[in-house]
């Protein structure tokens, strides 16, 4: 971990050295807050209508947010390095491919986690209005951060496949959308019931369900960690082939 500290720091700062990082942060937080208070039609009730001192509906918005935010965050990770040629500098530094991939993953995960944690002041304010279920609040944050990690790992693989950031964005968007919707009736209604189960099990959103109910299931933790590890492994193999 010590050896990748400087790579991690450089990657994390790259989000804040350009306006795009701030733009992603502000837009995401603004719309999350907006939809949290006003709601989205009948899908997610607004905070004032629900009249419950809970952050749950805010956290339930995050999976939708990630589908747009994560591709924007991850599209440049490898595509830009390849397009500008800095990949040649990176790959000739005394690091293994895994260390390069892991440093970039951790930096992006930290950035998206900061956006998730931006809801802490909101959580504290709500807790003053009623009885907050702190256990559930904790699992909501934990689940959201793990889910973000899974989406980021997909985005990094897509970015490693192309030199064009826009192609990486579109690929990540559609794969993330598929991984999200495969748990929902909308996508699986025409499939046989046994396939429904398989699709659901591999869906990123399916494994968030228990976190949103205040539970931390070992199987969900294993799923997210395995999924991220697998994607990072694929990413390492792609980088080796450049």
């Amino acid at each position, binding site marked *: 971990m010590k050896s990748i500290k400087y790579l991690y720091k450089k990657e994390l700062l790259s989000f804040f050295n350009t306006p795009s990082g701030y733009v992603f942060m502000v837009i995401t937080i603004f719309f999350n807050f907006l939809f949290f208070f006003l709601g989205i039609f009948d899908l997610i009730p607004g905070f004032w209508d629900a009249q419950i001192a809970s952050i749950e509906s805010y956290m339930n918005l995050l999976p939708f947010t990630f589908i747009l935010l994560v591709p924007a965050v991850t599209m440049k990770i490898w595509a830009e390095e390849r397009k500008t*040629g800095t990949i040649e500098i990176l790959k000739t530094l005394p690091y293994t491919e895994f260390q390069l991939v892991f440093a970039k993953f951790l930096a992006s995960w930290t950035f998206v986690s900061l956006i998730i944690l931006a809801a802490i002041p909101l959580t504290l304010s709500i807790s003053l209005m009623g009885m907050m279920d702190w256990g559930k609040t904790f699992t909501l944050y934990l689940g959201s951060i793990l889910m973000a990690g899974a989406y980021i790992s997909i985005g990094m693989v897509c970015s490693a496949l192309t030199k064009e950031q826009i192609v990486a964005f579109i690929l990540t968007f559609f794969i993330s959308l598929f991984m999200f919707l495969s748990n929902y009736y909308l996508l699986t209604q025409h499939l046989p019931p046994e396939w429904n189960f398989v699709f659901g099990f591999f869906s990123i959103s399916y494994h968030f369900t228990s976190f949103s109910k205040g539970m931390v299931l070992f199987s969900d933790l294993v799923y997210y960690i395995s999924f991220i590890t697998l994607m990072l492994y694929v990413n390492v193999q792609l980088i080796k082939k450049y």
Partner: protein
Amino acid sequence: MIKVKDLTVKYGEFCAVDNISFYVDKSSGITGLLGPNGAGKTTTMRVLTGYLSPTNGHIEIGGIPFDDNTKNHIEIKKRIGYLPESNPLYPEMLVIEYLEFMAYTKQLEQNKIKERMDFLIETLELQSHLYTPLSLLSKGFRQRTALAATLIHDPEIIILDEPTTGLDPNQIISIRNFIKGLSKEKTLILSTHILKEVEDVCDRVIIINKGKIVADRKVEELQRSNLIVIVAKSHRENILQELRNLSMVKNVQEENIIQSEFKRYICELREDKPERLFNEIKHFDWEVREFAPLERSLEEVFRELTIN
């Protein structure tokens, strides 16, 4: 020390580097890797620095084999300073941030970072632009910043891919002088297609064409031809005839020199051994004013070796 044996690199069916071998160390001076565009120079350098994996062959850097062992890869990369061809930099970083980043990531000892940075900033005259974003630097400053980053960890092996491309004449001279200064202590390979650069900077040259090494010699050896110019006169002997009679001489041409009794004789030798001819003509009763090998320009040599 760089040892390359039977190196082959293929991109699919296309063979970019075809079974080349060479050895470079400090005693080689500056070694120039010369060749036309697409000859395989950059590919060779990318393999030496670990950016690309070879299809075949054996590479040893500083006595460590470049094999499948990850620890060896890391150790080799610590010893190499590499300046890529297109001089890529992170545009959002400041010059000072970039140098610090490279110093830390190349794992230079903490207590040496400041001293090394100060030395390179001063030597490469970067003081005025330390807080300028890399995206706003002129070509010359970009090149100097990239060179400082390449050398920040004081590597024992330096590999520079076309280090003076796009610079103005003053900048070219300044970078070349800097590179010449480095060669005293380092193993240095420099790739270029500028022949003047090879003549000015390199001690040895490896010419690559279509992925193969077509010449690997000292620069002066490469320029030497088997033509000798003799300016001489003799009242008693027919110099032209005597030269024709010598076994080591393949062909002789005689030229008159205006308003002089001396004549110029251009001798083509059968072997590149001018000392043998010199020893022979000492025995004649000739008055010799000049005896010199006729040097070919590097351009001529390059064309001869890389066309057809």
